[in-house]
């Protein structure tokens, strides 16, 4: 007996037309598996036939074999029954496999295409959407689909076929008796409807409470140091107990809904059987019906009410899967803002970057940049300096085409960034983000993320070039050290080194460097500085600088404030000019004279 807790919240529930559209689209998406889907349906129809055949043959053998004393006719029916049972075995087996193959293939395609679509989206999409929601599309929404495919779809289809098949079959055998047997329908109908509505609400509540309890649990465990530090163990246990009690009560509420549905449907089934005996018996006595037909009726009725139950229980699951499918289709339909043109122009290997009259506003927001002009020569290093939120990172991200400018144009080697393909651009312009983000896998895997085909020797050469090979070799397993689960925890500085090594391996013409704001662990900082220096050598560099040492190391400094470049020149020029940059520099020097003095 499956207890599916697939509740759907009211706002997620689709109306009939929308559900039909979603299902039709899903069917179209099946593509090559469509034939298999139809085949599995046919197998199930045939299987339903074998299920109905058994009771029918029992009834028939009573009439034409047993009561007539005709042993041959009895044996024929027995042989038929045996054949039906064996055929049923193979049909059922075939249906399970075929349906699973269709469903699992569909799921696999869905996982891949939704994920690829996500990766193709521009940064503005990620600014807009919450990471947690996007992850849940790929996890809980796909899971609710997969739950349906693994547990529900076969049962749902089979139950539906059995219900319809049995009803139609019984009508053919004796419409009079069947009509009278339908007296139980209102009871079952009302109970089913009530169950569906109440159970949806109850299961949804249970699911929410489980979520609350689990997060309370998690909070209590991961905050245990604080709890103990402030001697709050008892209070926290009490607090948790309240949450836990609410979950228990929610469970009990759902039990009240679920506990009575099954008995009601079962009782309705028994009542129908009684009707078949009473009214069917009368029809037999009256000579209108044979006893075999009544027996077949009684046996078939046993299989009529189980599908009703299954359908009611699975209905929520189907609903929530449809709602999830709708959300996934929504993601697939999301337009991609930064896309490759149909006929992309190839970028030259090197070239100057030219920003002309560029303005930018985040979707719907106020202008962050307007009328920006700057030309950065091949191999030149430019530092972008300015207060937080003044637009320096935005400008750097536009050069890397994380976004497209809302006005003006940016060219690389004379080619408009929008005219080429994003992946081609990424071979030439690499962005090193603030934090050295690590992916699951080894250090080597992490360095290779920009060039997955690089050999170990190439990775080592790249590390050597920026002078961090010794540092990586110092790890227990060198390049093969796992960085996440069960591996060494890398410090912030070491993560930065991995990040720089990625860029070194990618060997791009242009490096966009988003400097970390937080300081690194002592001991790594100097290595990072040296690695950075050798990485910058021979490349065009745009550095979003937070440290003076970085801006001093660049050929030119662009001070960005109020959505535009307000000062541009070499470090010395700007200091001499006595403008905003000079003021920054002066206050930094005052700071140096204070307690923070270092030799």
């Amino acid at each position, binding site marked *: 007996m499956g207890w599916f807790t697939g509740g759907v919240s009211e706002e997620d529930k689709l109306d009939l037309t929308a559900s039909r559209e979603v299902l039709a689209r899903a069917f179209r998406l099946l593509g090559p598996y469509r034939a298999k889907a139809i085949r599995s349906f046919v197998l199930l129809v045939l299987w339903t036939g074998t299920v109905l055949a058994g009771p029918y043959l*029992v009834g028939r053998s009573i009439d034409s074999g047993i009561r007539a004393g005709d042993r041959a006719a009895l044996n024929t029916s027995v042989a038929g029954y045996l054949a039906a049972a064996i055929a049923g075995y193979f049909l059922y087996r075939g249906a399970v496999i075929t349906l699973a193959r269709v469903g699992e293939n569909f799921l*696999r395609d869905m*996982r891949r295409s939704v994920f*690829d679509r996500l990766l193709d989206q521009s*940064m503005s999409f990620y600014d807009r959407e919450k990471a947690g929601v996007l992850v849940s599309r790929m996890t809980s929404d796909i899971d609710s689909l997969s739950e349906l495919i693994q547990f529900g779809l076969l049962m749902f289809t089979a139950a539906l076929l059995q219900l319809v098949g049995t009803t139609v079959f019984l009508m053919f055998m004796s419409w009079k008796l069947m009509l009278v047997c339908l007296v139980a329908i209102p009871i079952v109908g009302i109970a089913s409807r009530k169950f569906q509505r109440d159970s949806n609400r109850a299961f949804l509540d249970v699911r929410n409470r489980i979520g609350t309890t689990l997060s309370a649990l998690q909070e209590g465990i991961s905050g245990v140091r604080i709890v103990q530090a402030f001697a709050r163990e008892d209070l926290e246990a009490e607090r948790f107990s309240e949450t836990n009690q609410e979950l228990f009560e929610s469970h009990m509420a759902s039990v009240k809904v679920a506990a009575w549905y099954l*008995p009601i449907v079962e009782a309705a089934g*028994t009542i129908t059987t009684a009707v078949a005996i009473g009214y069917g018996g009368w029809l037999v006595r009256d000579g209108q019906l044979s006893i075999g037909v009544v027996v077949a009726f009684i046996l078939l009725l*046993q299989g009529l009410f189980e599908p009703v139950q299954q359908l009611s229980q699975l209905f929520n699951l189907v609903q929530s899967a449809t709602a999830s499918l709708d959300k996934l289709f929504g993601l697939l339909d999301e337009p991609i803002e930064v896309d490759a043109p149909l006929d992309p122009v190839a970028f030259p290997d090197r070239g100057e970057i030219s920003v002309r009259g560029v303005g930018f506003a985040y979707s719907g927001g106020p202008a962050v940049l307007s009328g920006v002009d700057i030309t950065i020569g091949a191999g030149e290093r430019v530092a972008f300096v300015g207060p937080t939120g003044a637009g320096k990172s935005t400008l750097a991200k536009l050069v890397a085409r994380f976004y497209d400018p809302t006005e003006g144009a940016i060219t690389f080697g004379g080619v408009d960034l929008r005219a080429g393909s994003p*992946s081609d651009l990424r071979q030439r312009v690499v962005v090193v983000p603030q934090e050295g*983000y690590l992916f699951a896998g080894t250090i080597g895997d992490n360095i290779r993320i920009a060039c997955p085909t690089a050999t170990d020797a190439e990775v080592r050469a790249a590390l050597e070039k920026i002078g961090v090979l010794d540092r990586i070799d110092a790890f227990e397993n060198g390049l093969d050290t796992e960085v996440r689960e069960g591996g060494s925890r890398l410090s912030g500085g070491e993560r930065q080194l991995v990040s720089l090594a990625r860029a070194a391996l990618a060997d791009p013409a242009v490096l966009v460097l988003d400097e970390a704001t937080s300081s690194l662990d002592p001991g790594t900082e100097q290595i990072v500085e040296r690695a950075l220096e050798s990485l910058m050598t021979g490349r065009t560099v745009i550095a979003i600088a937070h440290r003076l040492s970085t801006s001093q190391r660049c050929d030119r400094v662009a001070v960005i404030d109020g959505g535009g470049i307000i000062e541009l020149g070499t470090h010395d020029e700007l200091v001499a000019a006595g403008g905003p940059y000079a003021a920054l520099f002066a206050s930094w020097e005052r700071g140096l004279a204070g307690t923070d003095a270092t030799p």
Partner: protein
Amino acid sequence: MPDKAEEKATHPKSPGWILLRQALVDQKAGLFVGMLLALGWTAARILVPRFIQLGIDRGIQGDDPLWLWATLIVLAGVVSGVFLGFRRMAAFRNARLIEARYRDRLFAHIQRLHMAYHDETATGELMSRANTDLQMFQNVVTMVPITTGNVLIVIGVVIIMMWTNPVLALLALVGLPAVSILGRRFSSRLHPSLLGIQRESAELAGVVEESITGIRAVKGFGSAPVQSAKLAVEADDVFNESMDAAYVRANYLPAIELMPNLGLVVVLAYGGHLVINGTISVGELVGFNLYVLMLIQPLRMLGTVVAQGQRAIAAGERISEVLSTAPAITDPPRPKSLPKRSGGGSVSFEQVVFSYGSAGSTTVPVLDGITFHIEPGESVAFVGATGCGKSTVAHLVPRFYDAVAGSIKLDGIDVRQLRRQELRRAVSIVFEDTFLFSGTIRDNISFANPDAKLTEVRQAAMRAGALDFIEELELGFDTPLGGRGLSLSGGQRQRIAIARAVLADPRVLILDDATSAVDPSKEHEIRGAMAEVMDGRTTIVIAHRPATIALADRVVLLDEGRIVATGDHAELLATNERYRSILATGTEPELDPDAVAVDGGDR
């Protein structure tokens, strides 16, 4: 592997068994009621086919009034329904009660377990003890009344069939035990596949999660194709595991369906001839048919229950492992009290040796005979390279761990002679990673003393330099944090953590690397708060930024678990080469105009 574990777990003296037995004994009243209801349900249910049989023989083919048998069938159906409903309520209630109680127990126990245990145990592991393991456990409790009913049905049906016609009964029943055996095998074969799907799905979710949270790195290095290929591999793995599960279903479900059908064929084949011979009646033939149908579900469930029971016992074993771990840091049998005093307390370490890991292991000591004394009201900074033991000093004072040798005294009393509650009220700590709980800002600040008045909370917030930004929030102190609440900056979180420590008005305040996770351009804000709360209070500061260290009256330089120098910041800076080299890194001021302006103005 799982098979081995299951085998071991079924041993009657295994902790899993003991726990399950105890859980069942705790619920014996409820379970007894559940079993009684199951008995009633069984009796009524078994009567139905019997009434149908008599209805056919004596009603349709005989002279009995038809309505009599019809009414009896309806009655039996309704009575069985009522019993079934109550039985289900009772079963679920018992199970959920056990689940809730054990979850409470687990949580309370986990809260009291010593820090060293938590260092070694992943959060996720404890989570699954209190979640999935408990689910499996409660599942079996649900099964108790259901299984009772099922066993009774099987016994009752077999007796009735044997009594009617033993030969036909044996023929009909011969294939049915296979339903149980197949059911059991199905459940234990399917289980690893389901775990496999779970595992592979989690791995797939890992790729999704890392790609989305690390989207900047993915985009920046153009590694979308790499991540896409990773996901494709994971999607294939999920596919393969799912297909394995589908094949297990395909191998067992149709067979489980086939066995009773074969029984029915036999009933018709042999029973049909018996009717022709006049040995049994048509009604009895139909009754046999119905009884075989009635056995399918219980037999299948009996098979599953064995497999589920084994898993539940294995789960119980894991649960009892947590519950039977005794907290290592306990209150002394005859606790002493701290002397009454206002303001700071004194802290002294005498020849303290400490090493992580289990006692007796030959690990290198983290602290190797440390001796120092901190006067009331004095602030001392502990400085040293990563791994020198400075954080350990901070964690030993509130007795998160016990020293291996030597003693640690607070106001002259060994910390092991104090009740933990009293000790930890007297010592407050601010950690490097500020953990805030979901709840309001006020809840978080008044964590040490939930009864604190708003004025006290405000006072603490003010001293921690948090009042201004809290009051700027629309809901002020009632602003919810965490989960769907407000996300604060690192500096703001840290100031709330400081306010939380200050509210307890501790004798000793420990700032354990409290500024290192904060953006350096914002560190000056925290530094101001720290200077304020340290004023006149005994404070232990763990830091590596010079400006923070300079706040302390005295500096202790640690190296490889030993004290190598003490003195004030300027003194050490002038005289100690090692001290200079440790501070030389990570100290360059930042080029954030806001920070520069404020810092510059201060000086």
